[in-house]
């Protein structure tokens, strides 16, 4: 369907036409969207002609709360930015504080951090695959990915005592060392996870019904993705090979060799919903490879530069970006030398993803709303903070 030129706001006839069309509001709590946010959609028949998004329903003043806590006490609260990807938030904040304090993180701790963050990435991607499959009726794949994800979460529980909110990364390293038993279990898990993408592909990814629903649907072109600040797998699916782990390696990623997965339009158009799904599936394989390399390179030594160290950072500011499972997470930390952070701000990848929805949905069909919104992998928790 030809998209209406809604940028031409002087055209009163377009507005009049749109005003006569039926509208529906999804949310803030709706089964179709991974809320809470509000999605207003205007239809012309079964085709969406306009959509608007309103966020903020999950704003908890997280950044302000962080500024009211002592430096060491911010770590448990950081997990609440993105509960699924807690390790990434912890890592970003710790890297920023380490930059302020000029702390050298031991090599062993760097490798452990890589293992934990890549396991978190695999966990998030499995959750994404399950949610997208469920949104198009693929319940079976959802249960399979949930089953595999449980094994990962069991390892997290073994490591840190918690399944999601790990509270494991510390300033200068990690909270505790990994044992040989844990390493062995992680390697066993890698063996299992490595064969899963093929199973998922056979069951779901390249089946006619899913290809028909996703190929050429919800295309995000590379220039639009860059314009809207989209990062991560959604940008890579559009063909842009941008990954901070390669472009600006941090915490030891410079020693790890892996491939950046980009969308190739295998069954449809580059940047469509199928590519966004496939990129994440392939990144699971790459994360397994990264974990293996990190464990191979795991040197002996300390797991934290100074576990008892409690001095606040000197006055200054630092900005650090990490590549999370959804995109780039930037953390800005400002210290005035006091016991409390002067300012903490996060720029999360979900903000750009939510902002892009009004451009993504027009031209799509009503039945694809849930699939497309789920496929954008929006975490309102980190978008609203």
């Amino acid at each position, binding site marked *: 369907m030809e998209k209406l030129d809604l940028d031409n706001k002087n055209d009163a006839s377009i507005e009049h036409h749109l005003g006569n069309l039926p*509208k529906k509001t999804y949310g803030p709590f709706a089964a179709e969207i991974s809320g809470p946010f509000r999605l207003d959609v205007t239809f012309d028949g079964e085709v969406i002609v306009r959509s608007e998004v309103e966020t903020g329903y999950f704003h908890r003043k997280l950044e302000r709360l962080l500024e009211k806590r002592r430096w060491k006490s911010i770590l448990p609260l950081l997990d609440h930015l993105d509960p699924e990807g807690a390790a990434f938030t912890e890592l970003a904040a710790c890297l920023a504080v380490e930059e302020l304090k000029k702390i050298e993180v031991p090599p062993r701790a760097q490798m452990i951090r890589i293992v934990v963050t890549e396991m978190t990435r695999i966990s998030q991607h499995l959750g994404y695959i399950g949610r997208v499959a469920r*949104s198009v*009726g693929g319940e079976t794949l959802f249960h399979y990915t949930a089953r595999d994800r449980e094994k990962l979460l069991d390892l997290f529980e073994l490591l840190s005592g918690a399944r999601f909110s790990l509270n494991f990364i510390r300033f200068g390293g990690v909270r505790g060392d990994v044992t040989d038993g844990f390493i062995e279990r992680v390697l066993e898990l890698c063996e299992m996870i490595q064969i899963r993408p093929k199973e998922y592909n056979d069951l779901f990814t390249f089946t006619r019904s899913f290809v028909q629903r996703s190929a050429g649907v919800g295309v995000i072109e590379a220039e639009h993705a860059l314009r809207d600040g989209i990062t991560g797998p959604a940008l890579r699916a559009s063909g842009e090979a941008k990954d901070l782990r390669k472009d600006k390696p941090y915490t030891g990623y410079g020693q790890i060799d892996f491939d950046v997965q980009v969308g190739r339009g295998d069954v449809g158009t580059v940047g469509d919903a199928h590519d966004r799904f496939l990129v994440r599936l392939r990144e699971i394989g790459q994360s397994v490879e990264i974990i293996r390399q990190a464990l191979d390179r795991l040197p002996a030594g300390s797991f934290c530069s100074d576990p008892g160290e409690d001095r606040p950072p000197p006055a200054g500011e630092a900005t650090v970006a990490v590549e999370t499972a959804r995109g780039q997470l930037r953390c800005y930390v400002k210290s005035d030398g006091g016991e409390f952070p002067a300012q903490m701000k996060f720029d999360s990848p979900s903000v750009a993803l939510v902002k892009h929805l009004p451009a993504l949905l027009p031209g799509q069909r009503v*039945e694809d709303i849930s699939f497309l919104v789920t496929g954008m992998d929006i975490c309102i928790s980190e978008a609203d903070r």
Partner: protein
Amino acid sequence: MMEAGVWAKSWERFFGISTALPPPVIAALGMTFLHLCFVFPLVWVVLFFERKLGADLQARIGPNRTGLFGFFQPIADIIKLFKKRTRGITTQEAVWEMALIATLFSTVAILPTTEDLVFLNTGLTLIFPVLIFVMIALWAMFLGISRETVIGVLGAVRILAKATTAAFPVLVSLLCVGIRSGGMSWTQVIHVQGVLPHQWNAFSNPFLFVAFIIFVLGGLIALSIPPFDGSQGVSLMEYRAECVLNFSGTRLGLFYYSRTYALVMWCMAAAGIFLGGWNVPSFMRTYIEAAGVYPLAQFFEVSAVLVKTFVLVTVVIWVSRVSSRQRTDHVTDWVWKLLGPVSLLALMGTAIWESGVILR
């Protein structure tokens, strides 16, 4: 065409009902008996089986708390839903819902249970299920429109689109059967088939096998049974039909019951039309009648139908669990472009094949 009143005599003979009762009373008693003693337990078992089979396919356990292996889970679900406090409905919604339910459950009259107990056995009985699903779609459409919401109207249109799209190939597939059977009544269709698979309509010639596939698929599409339930919401989470949005409590329980019954009814019709129906080895019937244990013959006939129905239901559940949901426009697209022309080819092929048989 079956002689009027013969069916009543069968029921009188089977149940020992007084011959003084007027046939409509016997019909009412019979329909109630069929529903309570046949349809309800059947739907219960299929609901339980669907949960367990689906769980097994998804590497889960499924219900295992209520009764042995969770057998009473469907009852527990129904009781829970009936206890729920629900919103009121408008008069319009009530009318269309009642029409929908009454239309669907009127198909109890054509269930091919046994030769002696089927109610409606006229020359056009086989067309009845197709008429029913078109009417159900019509009532569902009115129900959706009566909701006066955007999504209700869209869901209504989708349901009717699928039903009208599927009606054509299904009707043509029934014509294929009519050519072989020489009629459209249950007795004609089932008597032309035999006990063994190669004697069934579905496997007697390749064109009728195609007609069988078209019949089953068409029914699933028209009745919005997974994986063709794209009209049901915009996501799996909204798995209740859009035109029946906000079903809860008793009405939601009735919706699940009705959907499962529709699946069973369609598979039973397919078993009767294409898979030999109630045919049992003739020596069994002869021996049983000679021994005077008359109801045992009906028991074996019903069992034959139920076994075939269950096999079909299993295949449908299996496919629905492993397949993702198709969008409504995709479904109507391939039904028009594929099922329709293929059904016509099957009709021509059946006509040529059967005429060859006659000439031979």
